[in-house]
């Protein structure tokens, strides 16, 4: 991967504190959802932010895009601090930074047609003037995401989950963004539909030269799609590395446990790392020292008292653990057996047949089902 190492987005010491309801007699409870996170997003990469629910990954994604305002810290876009942006410049910036939401049922307005949904960014940002031009542009966008252009007069309820997610992607693409943030973009979808949307996102990234940030909890999807992975736990990044490094040699005990708990597609293969016990602690009542120490099998007194910094351990690799170097020795990496020969052959046959079907049909973007009267 030949990345031009220029950050498109950079967060420095980004924090977000949510306040609970306050009453006359008590101070409001606060939840530190994101705590002093610094991160660079390089031009053209796919960066995954992974973590369990409550890890602050979605909040961090929204802070990066300025959909939430940070309690502390700064976000730089192309080297410029977003705090100093005027309102009109900020509005203009929204063209460049777009988001795809998780729930394709909740994120589309049920009273708007597809044309209105996808066309809204076009008139909002004065990208295309005139109704006819806008309609043409919407049709083009729908074709880009693999939907028939004739769907533009329909309403969201007429579509399946996968089709709605494509509409959401078309809307995000409408303003010709430079960066796309997917907040769990495929986790609400069925397996086969998920594969379609993953492939679509990869193609679009290639086609338009996008930078992508994927916020997700599905580890297999992340391994498949991303170049780099940031692992978050209770509002902090605990490990940051290239995808292959993090999956093949996770350094942080939490990353190890997380990867070990993802089911393999091979019956009878057991992972050497023990299961993670218990739940993530309540973010309103943060543990002292290393936040992971309550669930960590290797925790010492130091871990319980001193917060480990996110330190650079090698090129492009950071980890926040006091004991990562000593733990490295007794770590057994996960051996994933290759798929069987029978499956590999039949999958190749399946793909070959799919390709020849595709080249036979006149309009490749529509499935046989959708073209039927």
């Amino acid at each position, binding site marked *: 991967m030949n990345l031009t190492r220029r950050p498109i987005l950079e967060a420095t010491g980004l924090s977000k504190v949510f306040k609970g309801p306050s009453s006359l007699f008590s101070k409001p409870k606060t939840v530190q959802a994101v705590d002093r996170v610094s991160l660079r997003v390089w031009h053209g990469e796919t960066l995954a932010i992974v973590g369990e629910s409550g890890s602050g990954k979605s909040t961090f994604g929204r802070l990066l895009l300025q959909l939430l305002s940070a309690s502390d810290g700064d976000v730089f876009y192309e080297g410029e601090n977003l705090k100093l942006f005027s309102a009109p410049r900020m509005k203009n910036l929204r063209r460049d930074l777009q988001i795809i939401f998780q729930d394709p049922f909740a994120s589309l307005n049920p009273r708007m047609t597809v044309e209105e949904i996808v066309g809204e960014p076009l008139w909002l940002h004065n990208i295309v003037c005139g109704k006819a031009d806008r309609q043409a542009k919407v049709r083009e966008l729908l074709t880009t995401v693999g939907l028939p252009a004739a769907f533009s007069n329909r309403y969201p309820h007429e579509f399946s989950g996968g089709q709605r997610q494509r509409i959401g992607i078309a809307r995000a693409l409408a303003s010709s963004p430079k960066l796309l943030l997917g907040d769990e973009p495929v986790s609400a979808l069925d397996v086969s539909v998920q594969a379609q949307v993953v492939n679509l996102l990869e193609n679009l990234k290639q086609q338009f030269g996008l930078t992508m940030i994927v916020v997700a909890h599905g580890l297999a999807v992340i391994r498949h799609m991303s170049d780099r992975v940031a692992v978050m736990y209770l509002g902090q990044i605990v490990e940051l590395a290239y995808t292959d490094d993090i999956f093949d040699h996770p350094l942080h005990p939490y990353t190890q446990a997380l990867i070990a708990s993802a*089911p393999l597609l091979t019956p009878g293969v057991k992972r050497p790392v023990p299961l993670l016990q218990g739940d993530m602690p309540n973010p309103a009542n943060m543990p002292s020292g290393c936040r992971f120490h309550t669930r960590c099998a290797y925790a010492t007194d130091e871990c319980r008292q001193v917060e480990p910094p996110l330190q650079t351990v090698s090129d492009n690799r950071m980890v926040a653990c006091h004991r990562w170097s000593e733990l490295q020795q007794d770590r057994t990496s996960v051996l994933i057996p290759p798929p*069987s020969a029978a499956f590999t052959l039949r999958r190749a046959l399946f793909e070959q047949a799919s390709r020849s079907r595709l080249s036979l049909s006149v309009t490749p973007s529509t499935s046989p089902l959708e073209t039927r009267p």
Partner: protein
Amino acid sequence: MTNPDEPVPPLLHIKDLQVQFSGSPTSVLDGISLQLEAGKTLALVGESGCGKSVTSLALMGLLPSSAKVLQGDIRLNGDSLLGLSERQYADLRGLELAMIFQEPMTSLNPALTLGDQLAEAVMRHQNTNKKQARAQALELLKKVQIPAPELRMEAYPHQLSGGMRQRVMIAMALINHPQLLIADEPTTALDVTIQAQILALLNRIQKETGSALLLITHDLGVVAEVADSVAVMYAGQIVEQGEVADIFNNPQHPYTIGLMGSMPSLAPRQGALSTIPGAVPLPRDMPAGCRFSTRCPFADTRCHQQRPPLRPLHDSPHHVACFYAPLENFFALSAEGACA
């Protein structure tokens, strides 16, 4: 009731079950046959709308009134469940058959403490007083490894995390020692680390109690982890069935192959994911032949017109409903395809 000369019937036997919703032109379950032995785990795999949840509702006698069983039978230890009255079914549910639902928050009663809900399940089926029932409830909370179980007896569901609620659901399902446990997407709403805990718990409990588990899921990873045998469903039919190793190492049906190819792996990336084009046909568009034929890259006229029977592959428990299985006997990889 069973003749000693006859072989012992399997714990659960679903025979050629056909269910149709009123107003729908096609059946939602179309000739489903399944068998499950005590102590074993059978996974029913498929995507949304394939009929896997309808199968479990039919088993529990919870089909909505708009659904009608057209033919077939469901037998538990050789006794048919379909003729049971609502009253008889209610005696069976929670005692012989118990279900773990996907979303524990909506399945637990928000207004009752955990101790009271669990005790209620005991008192419904066993002739005990409340004190004994609560003692059993506490025992079960310990068994599913709820921390501080004595305290949790007085807790309400909203005070627990998702993983803890699912443990309570499992405790409730187990409390009367059912022979058959039905788990409908038991870990879908949970994080992976919690999912691993719950799967390990189910595995351990099954070993201890010897109950059979019917696991309904769309996640092939979960299937590989816990199942003994697998039935792959598509649009109300079983398209492939076999031991778990058969399905994963020797998948035969194009749908199974496409589904497995569309799963990203934890191993290093190898090219783009396979995709199955299109979507499941609507009931009014359901083809007369193979229901997968509208999306199958190998389908021909025969597939569109004739329904392929679920047939065994060389006398093994591995069954497939496809005219062209194994694929390599009918199709060859071109030179161009081989390098893909």
